[in-house]
């Protein structure tokens, strides 16, 4: 009977549907058999939370060397916080520092030694034992060393400071090579060169933002990436509200950075003309009688060409602004001028930074509180003398191509990602017969390795750090393991020590810890015997507990003057750019956003952290001026090719209100091809298309000197960002008050630099 069939059908379908629904509801309702209706938000009275153990250590996410306190529970690190007693960060910590935990717990971390059993660059890695891996590497090294061809071994490591640097030196010496290079993309080569030329010092001075009353920042994103951002943030805040009158901050850069946003004034000078602008200000200071030194005539001579009129024309900053800046800079005491990547990574980078030093000198800021203060020599080794600039790496690549390198040892360094494609660095690596990587992750460079001996993360291993940019006196801190190693990995130092033993050149330490302790023993011995603790052991314990060590050895005010030759050498040429201005109308500024140099791109918290200026997450973008966008008929999300002479990258347009119309900017950090699940195949890497235009004075690539053109692809993508409409439409959400009636500073919370 057809009716029955229909009914049966209805019944069956109905029963099935109801059954599924009931099942889902049932599953959900019984999933938590104990639905305590008062959770931890209001914990029951008899509940007591577990007790955490805190370890003080050092952050290794960048080279600033902030002190950290790591909270651990049940043997697992749970949270990283700034160490309040560390003079560099005083309890503060940046987002990348917070995300250090995800280096430790990253799902893409290597869990044991790997051997490339297929073609290089493929996924053909197989698990091997440490014994196997170390033997393979040691045998290679041994052969070369024994044959006296140790120089065919190259070591390329990330910037390692402190006593680990000594350990690596010792290893290099043991195998008989001088090819030991530290490489950090963001190492300020130009700044070192400029300071050496002007001040005659190979170390970074301490820029005392904290006490300055007037800051001129030439392309230095001091709050977000330059040298020691957390310390600068403290200084920035303190200068604004810690003292009697509020510091005035001026940011001179073609694309507004977070520091530009925080500044009181943003001056979009033409890219590469920062030095000319500085000399213009210097000219005005000297010409208007603010400088009264004995060498005033020499200065007048050298600055005569930089009249405000000419400078205004060259920099695209009006004369009145220049005059005002010069006057307020000269009148404010103390004042400070700093020059960062935006100014230094140009074809005239070193000259520019020298000009900025000159400005500081003329305004009387050198050696003054609130100005440029020279650090005492660091207590431990620093890496600058070994830091590889672009030219060094290009040479290494050249040697590799020439077949002069047999073994390359990589330590947590990713030059394949940060070197421009034009350097053909990756292709050069292919010529090296044997590559070992000590990285914790497979990145673009490690992927080319034959053997990967994964090292501990910084939270599992020993180390120490003596912050290069300093705080005006000697400080250092020990990095200690806060949890037992998660995986079958070894500390970098231990791997090196082991290799040294295997090639018959054992070093004088048994372990990394031993090496660090040995180094600190020396510091202990050199310290004042009247004030120091009874024994090294008690000193060591106290050091680990505090996480930081410091010595109040402020240098006396430096009164030395630059000699006549130095003064005579001052002068900034107009910047040169690669690419024809007609064909390539825009200057590309790759800038460091939250991802550091790209090494933080595999941390999901960082990927999900909205960009400080644009609130974009998970991807790359091209910032262009609204007017430019209108002229080109581009809107947000239009996919474009950014083409330079060297190549092209593809990214969506983001209309950015605060960038010069002749400049486009792209963040560095995305565009990884092989860096784990969170970073791979996401966004674009603007470093790829940079021209290898080198500033000969620093030997580094002028990364802001590549001209590009924008080629619309006609495609459109949605830029993933968290913000809605970034205009407050008169709703007074962020309220401001005039400069005159800010009687507030007395009520603000004073920030003190804690001398330890």
């Amino acid at each position, binding site marked *: 009977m057809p009716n029955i069939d229909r009914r049966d059908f209805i019944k069956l379908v109905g029963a099935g549907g109801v059954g599924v629904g009931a099942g889902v509801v049932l599953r959900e309702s019984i999933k938590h058999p104990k*639905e*305590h209706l008062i959770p931890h938000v209001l914990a029951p009275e008899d509940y007591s939370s577990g007790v955490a153990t805190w370890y003080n250590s050092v952050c290794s996410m960048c080279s600033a060397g902030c002190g950290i306190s790591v909270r651990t529970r*049940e043997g697992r690190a749970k949270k990283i916080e700034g160490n309040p007693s560390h003079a560099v960060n005083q309890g503060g910590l940046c*987002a990348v520092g917070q995300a250090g935990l995800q280096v430790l717990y990253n799902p893409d971390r290597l869990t044991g030694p790997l051997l490339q059993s297929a073609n290089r660059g493929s996924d053909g890695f197989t698990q091997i034992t440490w014994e196997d891996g170390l033997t393979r590497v040691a045998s290679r090294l041994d052969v070369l060393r024994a044959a006296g061809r140790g120089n065919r071994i190259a070591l390329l490591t990330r910037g390692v400071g402190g006593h680990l640097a000594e350990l690596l030196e010792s290893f290099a010496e043991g195998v008989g090579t001088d090819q030991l290079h530290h490489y950090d993309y963001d190492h300020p080569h130009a700044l070192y060169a400029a300071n050496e030329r002007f001040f005659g010092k190979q170390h970074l001075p301490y820029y005392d933002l904290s006490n300055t009353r007037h800051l001129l920042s030439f392309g230095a994103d001091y*709050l977000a990436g330059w040298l020691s951002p957390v310390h600068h943030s403290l200084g920035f805040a303190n200068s604004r509200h810690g003292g009697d009158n509020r510091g005035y901050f001026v940011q001179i850069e073609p694309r507004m950075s977070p520091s530009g946003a*925080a500044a009181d004034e943003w001056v979009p000078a033409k890219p590469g003309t920062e030095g000319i602008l500085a000399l213009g200000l210097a000219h005005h200071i000297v010409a208007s009688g603010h400088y009264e030194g004995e060498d005033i005539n020499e200065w007048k001579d050298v600055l005569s060409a930089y009249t405000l009129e000419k400078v205004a024309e060259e920099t695209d900053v009006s004369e009145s602004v220049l005059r005002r800046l010069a006057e307020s800079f000269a009148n404010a005491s103390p004042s400070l001028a700093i020059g960062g990547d935006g100014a230094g990574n140009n074809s005239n980078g070193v000259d520019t930074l020298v000009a900025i030093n000159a400005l500081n000198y003329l305004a009387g800021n050198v050696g003054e509180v609130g100005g440029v203060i020279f650090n005492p020599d660091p207590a431990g080794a620093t890496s600058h003398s070994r830091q590889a600039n672009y030219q060094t790496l290009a040479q290494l690549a050249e040697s590799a191509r020439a077949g002069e390198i047999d073994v390359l040892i990589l330590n947590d360094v990713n030059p394949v990602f940060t070197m421009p494609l034009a350097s053909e660095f990756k292709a050069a690596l292919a010529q090296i017969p044997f590559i070992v990587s000590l990285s914790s992750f497979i990145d673009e460079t490690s992927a080319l390795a034959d053997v990967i001996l994964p090292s501990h993360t910084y939270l599992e291993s020993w180390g120490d750090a003596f912050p290069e940019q300093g705080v005006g006196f000697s400080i250092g801190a020990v990095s200690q393991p806060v949890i037992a190693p998660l995986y079958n990995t070894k500390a970098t130092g231990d791997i090196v020590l082991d290799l040294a033993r295997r090639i018959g050149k054992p070093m004088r330490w048994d372990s990394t810890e031993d090496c660090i302790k040995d180094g600190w023993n020396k510091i202990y011995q050199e310290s004042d015997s009247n004030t120091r603790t009874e024994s090294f052991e008690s000193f060591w314990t106290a050091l680990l507990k505090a996480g930081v060590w410091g010595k109040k050895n402020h240098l006396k005010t430096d009164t030395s003057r630059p000699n006549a030759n130095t003064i005579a050498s001052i002068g900034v040429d107009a910047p040169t750019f690669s690419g024809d201005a007609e064909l390539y109308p825009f200057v590309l500024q790759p800038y460091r956003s939250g991802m550091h140099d790209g090494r933080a791109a595999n941390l999901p918290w960082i990927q999900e952290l*909205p960009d400080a200026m644009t609130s974009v997450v998970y991807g790359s973008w091209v910032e262009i001026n609204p007017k430019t966008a209108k002229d080109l008929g581009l809107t947000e999300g239009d996919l474009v090719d950014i083409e330079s002479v060297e190549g092209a990258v593809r990214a969506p347009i983001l209309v950015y209100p605060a960038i010069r119309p002749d400049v486009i900017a792209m963040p560095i950090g995305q565009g990884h091809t092989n860096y784990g699940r969170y970073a791979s195949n996401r966004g674009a890497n603007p470093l790829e298309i940079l021209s290898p235009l080198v500033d000969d004075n620093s030997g580094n690539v002028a990364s802001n000197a590549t001209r590009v053109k924008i080629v619309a692809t006609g495609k459109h993508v949605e830029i993933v960002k968290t913000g809605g409409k970034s205009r407050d439409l008169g709703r007074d959400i962020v309220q401001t008050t005039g400069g005159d009636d800010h009687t507030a500073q007395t009520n603000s919370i004073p920030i003190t630099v804690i001398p330890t």
Partner: protein
Amino acid sequence: MSFLDRITEGWRKNRKPGYYEDFDYHWAMTIDLDQCSGCGACVTACQAENNLPIVGEDAFTKGREIKWLRIEHYWEGEYPDVKLNVIPMMCQHCDSAPCETVCPVSATYHNQDGLNTQIYNRCIGTRSCAVYCPYEVRYFNYNDHTWESPLDQQLNPDVSVREKGVMEKCTFCIQRIRQAKDNAKDDGRRRVRDGEVQPACVQTCPSKAMVFGDRNDPQSQVSQSLNDPRSYKVLDELNTNSSVVYLKKVEAEG
């Protein structure tokens, strides 16, 4: 006391709106916008402390990120006279919170510390609190979130992980407040000292723009900061009576 007296007394007491002054603590926060650089360290610190999920790119595309604390950006003017104002925005712990009244199941209410609490496992997910909140700081779990092993080992054991269908928001790191109270009790102190408890965002702020403390204590840093002439509340015209107070950004002339 007669029965009638008891009723009248209870009536009077419960008809009184301003009972918040009686609270043991009255936690409050000030954020100095002149010191804030919008770096986002607080955002990540919050994510680390409070087990905020890693939602993935797709969720961001759909606008379903969960950030108890976010940085809002407001541009002002056009190039070249352009400015960016940033403001960290999190639950304002309003004393007259619109979100609290609307919850049909009392999953959000004011606790004895003057905090606006969200009780996750009482929440049935009507999302009306998020509609009623003018600050848009309530975040909804549109699906269950997972942590790829071993990222889950980082999870803070003092904070519960929220399931799908539940609203969540900033708690002023209530677990830290709890811990501080326990510590105070263990030390035989009656009250938590000023500065003894800091939410993760305040703790990590590189420019120390945030101050947290007890408003009931007139000596506390936060009380002094609240008296700052620059202090203002966002959307104060809505009478939410918020516990997060901002200090105006100073626009200085060069």
